[in-house]
């Protein structure tokens, strides 16, 4: 029965998955096991996305199912859970750009993979990134930008992190509609990720996680 949930979720069978969750909670099962299955399902989803079997709508839908499961489980959690975190990642859309869908998907996938994500939102000046690095000690920074105006904003952000003496303390990845490896070089970032799972793969690589 335990495997049913993982398979159902990974196959995006929303109603069946939620039914199983309710049944298991009513049976008095440890809610942490359910959350663990949810995470395993998201791992499968992530892998299918990386293998080009699943696409962005599948990530969005699985994310919704995961959120619904978390909502069902939350009241049954005994205390604040100390979930093992693989590392800290700051995510933000750079100055002048208000787009966030891609960033939100990456943030979500990093979170379900086990990273501690600090999503500082849209249209963030370089100083906001610097402040968050200092505040959290995060080792990875993800810069999101959709428009061509983000090219210089990203370059300025990387430059500001350098001027603040923090450049060697963080790995910086960029992503978004107009970004590519040429822009990665232009901005001085460490890597460019073409999609959410590329971002997750980079974060895993930089934290030495398999």
């Amino acid at each position, binding site marked *: 029965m335990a495997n049913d949930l993982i398979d159902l979720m990974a196959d995006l069978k*929303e109603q069946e998955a939620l039914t199983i969750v309710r049944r298991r909670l009513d049976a008095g099962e440890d809610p942490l096991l359910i959350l663990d299955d949810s995470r395993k399902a998201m791992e499968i989803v992530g892998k299918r996305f990386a293998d080009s079997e699943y696409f962005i709508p599948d990530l969005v839908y699985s994310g919704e199912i995961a959120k619904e499961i978390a909502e069902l489980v939350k009241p049954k959690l005994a205390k604040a859970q100390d979930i093992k975190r693989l590392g800290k990642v700051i995510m933000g859309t750079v100055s002048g750009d208000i787009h966030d869908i891609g960033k939100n998907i990456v943030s979500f996938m990093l979170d379900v993979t086990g990273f501690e994500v600090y999503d500082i939102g849209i249209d963030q000046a370089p100083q906001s990134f610097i402040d968050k690095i200092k505040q959290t000690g995060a080792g990875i920074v993800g810069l999101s930008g959709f428009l061509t105006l983000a090219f210089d904003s990203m370059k300025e952000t990387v430059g500001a992190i350098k001027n603040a003496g923090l450049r060697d303390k963080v790995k910086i990845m960029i992503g978004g509609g107009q970004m590519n490896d040429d822009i990665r070089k232009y901005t001085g970032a460490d890597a460019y990720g073409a999609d959410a799972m590329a971002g997750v793969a980079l974060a895993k690589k930089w934290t030495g996680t398999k």
Partner: protein
Amino acid sequence: METSVDKTKEKLDMWCSASGITFASPQAEQDYRKRSRRISDSIQLKVPDRVPIAPLVTFFPAHYAGMTAQDVMYDPDKAYAAFKKVALDFQWDTAMNHINTLSGPMLEALDYKQLKWPGHGVAANRTYQFVEGEYMKANEYDAFLDDPSDFMVRTYLPRICGTLAPFQLLPPLTMIVPYYIGITMMMAGVAFTGAVSAFESIIKAQAEFMKLAISVGTFNAEMRALGFPMLMGGVSQAPFDTLGDSLRGTQGIMLDMYRQPDNLLKALDKLLPTAIRMAVSSAETSQIPVVFIPLHKGPMGFMSLEQFKTFYWPTLHKLMLALIEQGLVPMPFFEADYTDRLDIIKDIPGGKAIYWFERTDIFKAKEVLGDRVCIRGNVPSSLMCTGTPEQVRRYCKKLIDVVGKNGGLIVDGDVGIPDEAKVENVRAMTDFVKEFGVYR
């Protein structure tokens, strides 16, 4: 289906005929005829005298003329001057007018919610940007399908224009009908819901719009007189994008594909006549047969091939066929990457459409559908903004050699000329195409 009259050729010939234009000089007339013929030949997959260059610009003219985006959004005269400067300095095969820089005061008058723009949510020299939202909720398909016009007036407009919020308190327009009491009740509705202020805001907005419209109309006339044809005629959208951009939002419509596919398909069919009507009427108004169709949500990664075939392509395909039926030239702008769906979108009558590609492998596109459609694009924005003139020239050479083989290419940036493009790169692109793009 073969018809005895090639309506596309008819409409393009009319566009090339320059009837009704009083040219500023014999040179201007010659320029106009050469440029329009060059583009018309490219569309119909005949070999032109040289590869046309017909870029889209939005705020590049502002940057070029030393103005901010806010300047041109709030002052049509400034926008006019900037766009004219670009047209005269670069001498492309078409000119672009400033209708796409919109009117800041008009948007303000309506308290428009779906954009943030310079001076109103983004900095002065940034482009306007779309504000994602669920402007139609997941449980509102029935209301939309049952009476879309009522949904527009009393649910959608109040959500997207702050000043039109009182409309949600009005009774449906059908209230006007019964007896003579109906019209009295409607007037009571207008009086007591505060809808008068909504109508006043519309009056204010349209006054601002007229300033822009007159400016653009004058600009069009001047550009034509100076020898520049204009390519952006009508405009429309794939029904999936109308529903997904403006109504359900990106997240909403993605979930709808799983949770309510039947409703989604019905709504797409419902929106198709609107898409056709919009294209035809805007092409008619402009007297230019090319219909610009920016596409957003159908690329690789954004949906599977199965979802593309089921939800995205059918109504877009029907839209384009309906336009071609009337001799109009659909110009879908395939934003992002469609490389794995080229075989599907190839299904279109030959020589009747322009396919504009951004990130699609444009060289593969030429292989797959170069014998069907004229291809537009796709000098990368990253090169235009951060590269060198030499890199730009090198890319243009490959474009012309491969995609321009036997005609069928209109050169532009991958998303048009980006706002922040380096001027030297724009010059390099322009000069190179004019020199190297000649067919011998």
